[in-house]
């Protein structure tokens, strides 16, 4: 069950990144016809990241202590002391960015170049930070794996 929760966290995060890339391309080609889709996709990015945050947060608060102990005793303690600590706090900034995205996307990006530039920057930051936190998650997973390998001898 805990693995399903963790995979759901990764799934929502990855879907958020994919939706973000979709939105970036849509805004690059903003016109009157795709304004509705831009607003829908900006909401989708926000909802997916909130789901990733809540599901990941539930797992972190209830199950991560087991992995944490293994990581800290293993050869990659930095997987927790740097990557997890950094990830859990950068994720809060990511949450603020996705919450802001629909507000920025409410402007007409087809006629307003300033608004278009703003949405592109916000969604660009979301995608880049999303990829970075996804990579950090992978390092945390490997940290637990190499920790278990040492434990098993």
């Amino acid at each position, binding site marked *: 069950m805990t693995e399903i929760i963790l995979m759901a966290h990764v799934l929502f995060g990855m879907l958020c990144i994919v939706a973000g890339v979709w939105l970036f391309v849509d805004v690059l080609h903003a016109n009157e016809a795709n304004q509705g889709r831009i607003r829908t996709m900006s909401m989708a990015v926000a909802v997916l990241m909130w789901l990733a945050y809540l599901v990941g947060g539930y797992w972190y608060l209830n199950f991560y202590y087991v992995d944490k102990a293994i990581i800290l005793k293993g050869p990659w303690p930095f997987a927790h002391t740097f990557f997890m600590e950094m990830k859990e706090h950068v994720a809060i900034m990511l949450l603020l960015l996705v919450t802001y995205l629909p507000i920025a996307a409410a402007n007409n990006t087809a006629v307003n170049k300033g*608004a278009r530039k703003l949405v592109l920057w916000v969604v660009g930051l979301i995608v880049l930070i999303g990829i970075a936190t996804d990579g950090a998650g992978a390092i945390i997973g490997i940290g637990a794996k190499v920790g278990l390998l040492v434990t098993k001898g």
Partner: protein
Amino acid sequence: METISKYTVSFGASLAITSILSALLVVLKELNENSVLAWMKGLTSHHWITHGLFMVIAFFAIGWGLAKMNNGEGLKMTPERLVCMIASGVVIGGLIISGFYLVD
């Protein structure tokens, strides 16, 4: 000059401010485990939940406050300057967090 809505400007500025506040709270709580961190943990059972709640509340409170400035017309800023402010806030916040855990 192209304009964007007062809520876009106000909540964008709030995003930049809150990102840096969040990073500073990380440093503050980690350097004061027995006082600040323990107090945050006591509020919701985990300091991370409290941290997230504080930042979401701060984001909306600051954004709402900035939107009420100038007799309700909100904070004034060009889109270019807002982009610069948001990018700077997020990058500086990220560097503070990463830098802190790198040297901690």
